């Protein structure tokens, strides 16, 4: 199957997806749940952020047991490294996970006894890894002086690993039977996702789960041809349904609807590479989209929050509510104007609950934390 699919086929695929999604949204039952902590934090001040995270980790039962003596991979979000400002504000402020949040989290992991901490992101730059992170606004010297066991990895492709690692999604995968990833996401004991709280042009929201979209190698998920030097994003495959070099699509009739594919790809990835801890940077961010490329529909927001949880669906559900949305909202309603609801799809596969009533919120309440994000445009 190629992208030269007929409009009829496209509509048929989209309909199948939509119907499937509606039926899945209705599922409930004893889904995994875990507390989510919310803290007020208005400044990217290291001491303040660290103190807030420390409190939140305590509220979540502590992180000692999670990270002590372990290798911790920290997936941050610098959106590949397109360093373009939003309304003249640097992407470090508005688009990327802020370095201070990452530094504070890693500092706490280190103090809790983490053996190795690897900061991971798929950077489109072909520069040396450390230079690529520096170009994204991360001061590596500060990190090194604060967290001695810290390492940096560009997981865009194979990176320092000898080969890709295949992670099975499990039963009832949406799009892929398995996901190919950089070895760092496998050769680790603990997977931490630290995204920025943002809208997403397609998915509606991008949070802890969507952050793992970037774990998929460009070399395999940007086209049908495996090109190890690829610096392309994954839109052609994961958004638009182009064939991937990784293969493994499960749909009998491919969908080319990004609104169908993106949320399902996210759920498949998260099922293949489970997240152990999610920390969402919502101190300052943007709304209406996930980066400057979303253009005129974006804006600046200052929720002044940090949100963390062990279960990514629960964490993202609370985040979605904080952003002013119904976490169970159907496609076509905000913020899911252009896509199926990732949270509901994840819940349907048993990753975690997207029912607020089933999630214990610690620290600041959702009502007190709520900060309305204006969703991006309808397509």
């Amino acid at each position, binding site marked *: 199957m190629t992208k030269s699919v007929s409009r009829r086929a496209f509509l048929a695929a989209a309909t199948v997806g939509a119907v499937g999604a509606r039926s899945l949204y209705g599922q409930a039952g004893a889904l995994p749940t875990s507390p989510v902590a919310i803290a007020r934090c208005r400044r990217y001040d290291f001491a303040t952020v660290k103190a807030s995270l420390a409190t939140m980790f305590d509220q979540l039962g502590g992180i000692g047991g999670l990270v002590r003596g372990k290798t911790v991979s920290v997936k941050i979000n610098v959106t590949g490294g397109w360093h373009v400002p939003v309304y*003249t504000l640097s992407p470090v402020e508005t688009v990327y996970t802020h370095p201070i949040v990452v530094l504070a989290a890693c500092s706490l992991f280190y103090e809790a006894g983490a053996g190795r901490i690897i900061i991971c992101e798929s950077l489109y730059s072909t520069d040396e890894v450390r230079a690529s992170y520096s170009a994204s606004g991360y001061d590596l010297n500060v990190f090194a002086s604060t967290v001695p066991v810290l390492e940096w990895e560009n997981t865009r492709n194979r990176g320092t690993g000898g080969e890709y690692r295949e992670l099975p999604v499990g039963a009832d995968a949406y799009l892929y039977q398995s996901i190919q990833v950089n070895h760092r996401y496998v050769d680790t004991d603990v997977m931490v996702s630290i995204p920025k709280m943002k809208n997403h042009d397609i998915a509606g929201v991008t949070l802890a789960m969507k952050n793992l979209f970037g774990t998929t190698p460009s070399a395999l998920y940007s086209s049908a041809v495996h090109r190890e030097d690829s610096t392309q994003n994954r839109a052609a495959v994961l958004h638009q349904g182009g064939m991937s070099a990784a293969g493994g699509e499960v749909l009998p009739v491919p969908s080319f609807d990004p609104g169908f594919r993106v949320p399902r790809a996210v759920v498949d990835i998260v099922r293949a590479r489970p997240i152990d801890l999610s920390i969402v940077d919502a101190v300052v961010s943007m709304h209406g989209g996930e980066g400057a490329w979303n253009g*005129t*529909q*974006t804006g600046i927001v*200052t929720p002044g929050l940090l949100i963390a949880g062990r279960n990514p669906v629960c964490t993202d559900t609370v985040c979605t509510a904080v952003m*002013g949305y119904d976490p169970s909202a159907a496609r076509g309603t*905000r913020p899911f104007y252009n896509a199926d609801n990732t949270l509901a799809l994840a819940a349907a596969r048993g990753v975690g609950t997207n029912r607020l009533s089933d999630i214990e919120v610690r620290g600041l309440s959702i009502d*007190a934390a709520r900060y*309305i994000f204006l969703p991006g445009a309808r397509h």
Partner: protein
Amino acid sequence: MTVIRSRCAFVVFILAAVPATGDVLADVPGFHYDDQRTGRTTALGPVEPDVLWSFKAEGSIHSSPVVASDGTVYLAATDGLLYALDAGGQPKWTFKAHEGIYSTPALDDAGNIYFGDLDGWYHSIRPDGSERWSIAVPEGVERRILASPLVLSSGNSYVASWNGYLYAVDPAGNIVWRRLIGGMPSSSPVADAEGNVYVTTLGESDLLVAKFSPESSTPSVPVWTFRESLGVNRNRVVSSPVVDTSRNRLYVAASRTSDGVLCAVDIDTGERTLRVVLPKGVLSSPALGDDGSIYLGSVDGRLYCLNRLGTILWSFRVEGYYILGSPSIDGVGNIYVGDSEGTIYALSRDGRELWRAASQSSILSSPVLVDDRLYLTSCDNRLYALASPSRSFYFPQVADGNRGGGDLRTQFLFTNSGDDTQVQLQFFESSALPFALFSFPWGSMYSTFSLPLKHGQTVSLESTGFLPFAPRELSVGYAAVRAGERVNGTVILSHLQSDTGLITYQTSVPATEPAREFSLFVDRTGGRETGLALLNAGNSNADPQLSFYDSSGTVLAGRTVAQITGQLLLKGQHLARYAVELFPELESGRIERGVLSVRSSSPTAAVALCEYVDDSAPMEGALRSMSTLPVIPAAGGDGSDTRTFYFPQVGNGSSADLGLRTALLFTNLGDEADLVVDFFDSDGKPLSLDLVDLGVRSSVASRVSKGEVFSVRTSGEGPVVSGYARVTTKGSVSGTARFSYGQGGVTLFETGVPACGPLTDFSVFQSSIANSLETGIALVNTGSAPATITFRLYDAAYRLVAVKEMSDDEALAPGAHLARYAKEIFAEADLDAVPLGIITVESDQSLAVISLRHAERPSRLVILPVIEDRPDR
């Protein structure tokens, strides 16, 4: 809301011409107050940020409230509800839109409410909450309406949608025309004075402004379009433009790749007349000051003030990261703006912080000012109504400019015994038009300004008497003051010789609170003339009734202001006339003394000034005196209680180089009453004075009939003596004193000395200049035991400079009198280092007190107020 007191320091003053506001009916019909989106109102903001009430909506509030003429507040929230609240914050009704509301509503002349929602619906709601019509804008998939509609007096409205269209909608809800302007229009359309409509958007990578003329035959065809390259095609134009009608230009701001830009566009030609690059992007809508200054916030966290040439005059850094909302300007030029952390700041027009207060989340809207109240919305879902108790008072006569070879100047002294606050000043000419009294370093003259006043702080402001680089014609008017409840002040009017700078005369004008009924002494003895200044401080026009009673209490004449001047005393207007101009009968009847009573349907503030020129003086004009006569309140009570009041300084006699005379004037507004005046020396022993027509006496008793004016005057003969007078009466008797000081038989000056009652805690101004100006106090112990008195001297910044305690052997005996200059009280202190400040007085016995300021070369005396409060209490 957490209230955080201001930390700002004392300021400067500011000056500019704002339209006379009076007390205009409160009404905020749309975003930034008017069709031009000036962001400026005549209403005053609170002097301190106290929360009167708050209302919590179900959703976050991104838009500004609007206020109907009946005080109803309309609030649109992202929960999709339009809330109507009464002025007390109580909900009246809600209207549910199809989706969240982000646009500030707009009101038409009938009070109907217009707004758009996130689903692309455009609504019109009646004031009772019922729907008039709702229309869905037809084009496009994404049709959300974020910007505030523009509703013109024609009833037509203009609204822009993210589908890229500008729609013209008639009053019935029909789309009359539409125009695709592109982008995702998010800023509110504006109009000029002729009703031409301007809209901005992002056109490709340009900032685009289009002008439409609704009255033309092709209303949907732009008259012109203006484009300014932004270099990027991703930064939506969020900032709404503002039209400066007096300069025929429009200001519009936007974000470029790495900086911001503000452009001025000629509204006739569409040509750019100004471009200013700012360090960072702009989402805030500019506000336009009364002098053409532009205020706008930036994502660099600064509020910028630019003059009309584009020069940045100042910037103020908020504590939050960004300014995403828009500033608002009040009637004295104060600017209010919120930051991304939820703190609102009040700034004076020169950029000094007046106060700040914190909400719980970002402020994306523009504060709204209505009648001493500030409405603020926040992303914490709340609408806050901020208002604070304040004092309003007037100085009924101020002047500035040149006349007859001399310069008239006005000095204001203020001190604050309460919490940090501010003083808001407005100056008006007699016609109620703005009166530009002060100038700023950048050359502008202002008729309104405010200044922060911290606890215990004292400030002095003095007009220049001339314009920058030009002579100034004399302007006369009054000052309206609004300040914290424990702020006190006075005005000192000075006339100086232009060539020598020497003072011709000085007199104080006390702070006056308006009343509907009061009286004033009129003294024409010895060639004196008494002038009267009245101002209508109420909300309505009035025709005050003026009645003159001669010294026997007989009504000589009565007439209204309209009968005298041919017109009513309109609200905000001021009338200054000599008594003889109001009542020519005084001249023809050779009436020298009496009382002028005033009754008005509107609160009226007044002062009487008595002018005296000693004809025997060798230099004509140089020995003119002006003394202030107090306002006599309307009679109250039944007059059965014994009252005692004092004149803490009287004097009489003559020597080779000194001549003193004292005149006491009394009148009785109530029933006939007995009056006893006793004179005492500094030890509290009876003091014999040579009194005109009464001989040498230490006590005078009289029965004063209703309306009668009774006077006790010393002759000026005999040895020089001084002391005080005690007045005991049972009736509604009021009095004042006039103190005359001369040399060589020539009267150098006269000054009015008010009566006072006993106090134990008070303060007085300290105002001195080495070898030329000094402050003095006269005290009488009216208690029954020796008074231990503690004097504390504070400088203008409320730093304690010196303390003097008079106790034990120094304690002031009962009935004893003490008159000292500050340099004598604080003999160890360097008074030259304290040119301005206050002296607080604490006593364990009640004291009667007056305060005065004496100028040397030539010798002049002016009475300063006794402040019945002190900051160190």
